[in-house]
Each structure stands twice: as C-alpha cells, then as structure tokens.
C-alpha cells in the first residue's frame, strides 16, 4: 500500500507525526504538503495534490490521508473527483463502514476533535479493514462515478 498525505495548517502537526508513525509501520508514505505551516493556507489545494498523486500513481493499492481541523471541507474537496471515495473519520465504527461498504480510499481526519490515541485507532481500522466486495456495494460505487454525469 502506498499512502499520499496532505494537510492544511490545522492538520500540519498531526501530519508530521503520522508520516513518522506510518513509515515506522512499514508503509510507503509520500508527503504532499504543506511543506511548512502557513496559518493562511487553503485546504482544497492539498486535497487536489493528494488526489492528483493518487490518480497518476500506477500502484494497485493507493490511498490518501487528508488532515484539517474538522475534516469536512477536505472530504468535500476530495469527493469532487471521480475515483475518490473520501470519508470523514470521526470514529472507528464509521471508518470500518466506509472501508467495508464504500471501499473508501481517502481518510479525512478531524485533528481538532481527536487525541492521538483515537487517531491511531481510526487510522489502523481504516488501514486494516478490507472492502467486502459485495455486489451491491460494487454497484453503488460504480454509480458514484457514472450516475452523476447522467443526471
């Protein structure tokens, strides 16, 4: 698994910690910025950078992690793009559902609402939970990218 990670100013510190944590866990992690903490940076640009890196990477299992204060804006930004299924990772139950049901490939972490222990629990659940592959879930995932154009 290859992981692209990005964050705005509210997620900058946690991003640095998670890059370390994931690398120590043996994951290939690519930091898409911001490279320095800019209090006035705008989250959509980091969502776009991570999504672009994911879209152009030839690896078979590519994931993205996006961090802001609340995680909501990042999920809005990332989900604009086809092929991206970004969840807001508030707790382990919901990211388990997002992986099992939605084959979620981008985890948006609300840094403001979680302590590090909670972040690790959510992250591990998201990394370790496989997509169920159930036909009804596959059908809905295909609709996400196809149906939007038809309506």
């Amino acid at each position, binding site marked *: 698994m290859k992981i692209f990670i990005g964050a705005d100013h509210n997620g900058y510190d946690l991003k640095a910690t998670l890059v370390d944590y994931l690398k120590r866990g043996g994951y290939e992690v690519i930091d898409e910025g911001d490279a320095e903490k800019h209090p006035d940076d705008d989250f*959509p640009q980091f969502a*776009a950078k991570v999504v*672009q890196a994911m879209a152009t990477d030839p690896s078979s299992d590519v994931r993205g992690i996006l961090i802001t204060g609340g995680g909501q804006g990042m999920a*809005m930004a990332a989900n604009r793009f086809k092929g991206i299924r970004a969840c807001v990772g508030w*707790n382990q139950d*919901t990211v388990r559902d997002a992986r099992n*049901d939605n084959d979620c490939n981008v985890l948006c972490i609300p840094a403001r609402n979680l302590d590090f222990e909670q972040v690790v629990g959510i992250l591990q659940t998201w990394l370790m939970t496989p997509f169920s592959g159930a036909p009804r879930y596959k059908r*809905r995932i295909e609709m996400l990218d196809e149906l939007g154009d038809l309506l």
Partner: protein
Amino acid sequence: MIIALTTDHAGFDALKELKVFLQDLGHECVDYGPTQFDADDDYPVYIFPAAHAVAEGTCQRAIIMGGSGQGEAMAANRVPGVRAALFYGPVTAKVAVDAEGTMSDDPYEIIKLSRQHNDANVLSLSGRFLSLDEMKYALKLWLDTPFSGAPRHIRRIDKLDSVSL
C-alpha cells in the same frame, strides 16, 4: 427554506419523521424519495437528484441519510456547488475551533462549524449512529446557523470548485 429530503433504505423511517419536524418548523420539504421501502435500493439514485436540486438552486438545502452517511456524502460532494457535511454524533473539540482561538465544549460544535466555515448546504446524517432526538437537534441548529462570511472561508469555498487536476 426549501429543503430537499432523501435517503436510502437505512434512513427510510427516520426521514419521514424528520420531514414532519421540518414542516412544523415552517420549512417546505421536497421529497426525493424513495416512496417505498426497498432494502436493496442504491443511494446514488436518490442522492444525485437532490444534490443537483441544491446546486441548481431549486432547493436551498438538502438533508440526506444513509446507514453511516459516508457514501451519501461522497455522492453529494461529486456535484460542483454542493458542500455536504457529515454528522454521526456529538463530539467535543479538544483544541480551539477557529483561527481566533475560540474554545468550545459544545458537542454539536461540528454542526455549527460546517455552516460557519464551510457554508455546508447538504447535511448527511447517519441513520445507524444517531437517535431521532440527536438528528432533530442537529437539524435545527444546522438550519439556524449562518455562514460567517469570513474572507478566508469564502476563498476556500471558491477553491473547492476551481481547483482542478
């Protein structure tokens, strides 16, 4: 307000109750289905038309629901102009909630922030993780909270639909 409502099977019963609740508050509800319970229905079929109604201005807001609400928010956020926030339970922020350093112990702060910071126009509710009382409280708060209009938030919202690959 004119509010689009829709769900998949997981929110079928709860959404009917929320419709009455919203109408009692004086809102006009436009029902985007489903009209009958079908345990095998597919949320994108219902979510996309409601999301487009918001993007095109036919409805000012949409309330959407599913089991976790995640897939529904993914679908809605595919549509430019839509800003769908997700809610699946009260949570308290551990650090300041804005650039001014404001602290909050309000477990519904994320509902307010989705309006103040993101000008969210769609709210995706988790049918499995929320009680009806939590949904109603969150809904009213979300509808009553205005967008801050702060230049930095306007700039980021603009970038949601202008940053491309």
